[in-house]
């Protein structure tokens, strides 16, 4: 007869691992501190002037950037929350314009084999142009930094929307098209009952790629030339080169990432909401 006595600490640990509510968070609890620790170590090696560690970043930006995201000292001296709102506003305008135009153009290209084929080379070339390459020409045309930034968003976001909409239409299963042909569905009934429902998932895949690109582009465009916005804030902090600059930049980058992730999830969520059941 052997009686095993477990030490209480091991009991507690296995309870933590086995608790069904806590178990899903275990990977985060283990991995995130490791990430932060590595960052802190690198910072210690490089010196915190060159790369502040996570503790320094929080300490240096606590007042006012973390505590007061919405302070406004006039001009471009604003809290990060306000800077992000300025950027989001530009993205919203450019992205909505791109979504409307892109779905329309993609719809036409998808339905017309002739136009789809004829304009494909144009799209294939233009879609690979990096967002910022559009900025100079946009400044020349619009003569205004804000409008140009919005145009850059538009032109960056539109390609995946056009392409996915057109592909979505081309991918409508033959089965559904055959049903439409036998029933001799009118153009209107075909678009409403078959074309739109079977294309919506593709369109939203495009919209999701587009919102990511739009957010990438706005931050970059604002760094080049803009008044306000989170990209402007990053570049401004770099140019100021003060004590807390690097910490401010890192905090802003963290916010940029969070906002980008939220935008992606938001579009995905809307997509699920409006998508009809797939096959």
């Amino acid at each position: 007869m052997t009686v095993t006595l477990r030490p209480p600490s091991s009991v507690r640990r296995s309870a933590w691992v086995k608790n069904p509510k806590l178990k899903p968070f275990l990977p985060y609890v283990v991995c995130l501190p490791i990430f932060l620790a590595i960052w802190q170590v690198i910072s210690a090696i490089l010196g915190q002037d060159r790369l502040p560690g996570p503790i320094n970043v929080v300490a240096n930006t606590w007042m006012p950037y973390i505590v007061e995201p919405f302070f406004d000292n006039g001009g471009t001296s604003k809290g990060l929350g306000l800077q992000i709102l300025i950027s989001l506003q530009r993205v919203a305008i450019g992205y909505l314009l791109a979504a409307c135009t892109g779905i329309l153009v993609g719809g036409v290209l998808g339905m017309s084999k002739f136009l789809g084929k004829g304009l494909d080379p144009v799209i294939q070339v233009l879609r690979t142009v990096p967002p910022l390459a559009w900025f100079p020409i946009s400044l020349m045309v619009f003569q205004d930094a804000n409008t140009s930034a919005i145009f850059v968003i538009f032109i960056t976001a539109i390609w995946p929307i056009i392409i996915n909409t057109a592909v979505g239409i081309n991918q409508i299963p033959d089965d559904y098209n055959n049903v439409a042909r036998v029933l001799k569905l009118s153009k209107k009934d075909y678009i409403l009952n078959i074309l739109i429902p079977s294309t919506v998932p593709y369109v939203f895949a495009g919209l999701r790629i587009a919102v990511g690109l739009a957010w990438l582009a706005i931050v970059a465009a604002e760094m080049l030339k803009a008044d306000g916005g989170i990209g402007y804030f990053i570049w401004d902090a770099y140019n100021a080169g003060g004590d807390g600059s690097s910490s401010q930049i890192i905090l802003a980058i963290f916010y940029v990432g969070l906002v980008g992730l939220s935008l992606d999830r938001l579009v995905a969520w809307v997509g699920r909401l409006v998508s009809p059941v797939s096959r």
Partner: protein
Amino acid sequence: MTAILPSTAATVNTGFLHFDCVGKTFPTPRGPYVAIEDVNLSVQQGEFICVIGHSGCGKSTLLNLVSGFSQPTSGGVYLDGQPIQEPGPDRMVVFQNYSLLPWKSARDNIALAVKAARPHLSTSEQRQVVDHHLELVGLTEAQHKRPDQLSGGMKQRVAIARALSIRPEVLILDEPFGALDAITKEELQEELLNIWEEARPTVLMITHDIDEALFLADRVVMMTNGPAATIGEVLEIPFDRPREREAVVEDPRYAQLRTEALDFLYRRFAHDDD
């Protein structure tokens, strides 16, 4: 081959649905492929025809010519004397994979067809037609379910109800029960016969199943193997309608017809699996 044409030569020598020396050749990278050749068949209005043969015997090619999805390369297919040139609701198809729109309920799938193919009916008349056909296939309770919430048999019922709701002159069924289990299959065969009795459209049904063909059809058309498949033999099925499965199966002629069909398919035109 002369036995294929029915003796009623009075109506300009053609039936309601008429295949006249039909051939279909497909261009392929390795030269033309003759799918079917010299197909002659005359179908009376309201007749139930089953086409049977091994895979690759051109059954689907034949079906596409009737539905109008493709055109013959020689000869012609005529409905009521007119050559068939394009798909239309007068020749409704029950597709092999149901082809229901997944984002629409059973009811809305049928309603869309009725709305498109019978626009002269008022909205309330259309609703009645949909109700009636849902009832015919026993789907009144499940009418608001979408296809992904329905079993295979239920989906096929919706497809059949959709096809019949638009009152086609010809009903084309492409191996409609091939994917179903044996019990569901027998149930659906009986339901199909019952519904068919109501409006009596001409039926062209493709199947792999000899027993199914013998139970359902007025005539069973047996195809030779492809390439260049053609009609090898036509069996007249003499059983009275409405048919009871037990009575049909116990009829001594059933065994004889079955033997003939088996003999054709597995001895004279056995499929060599190359």
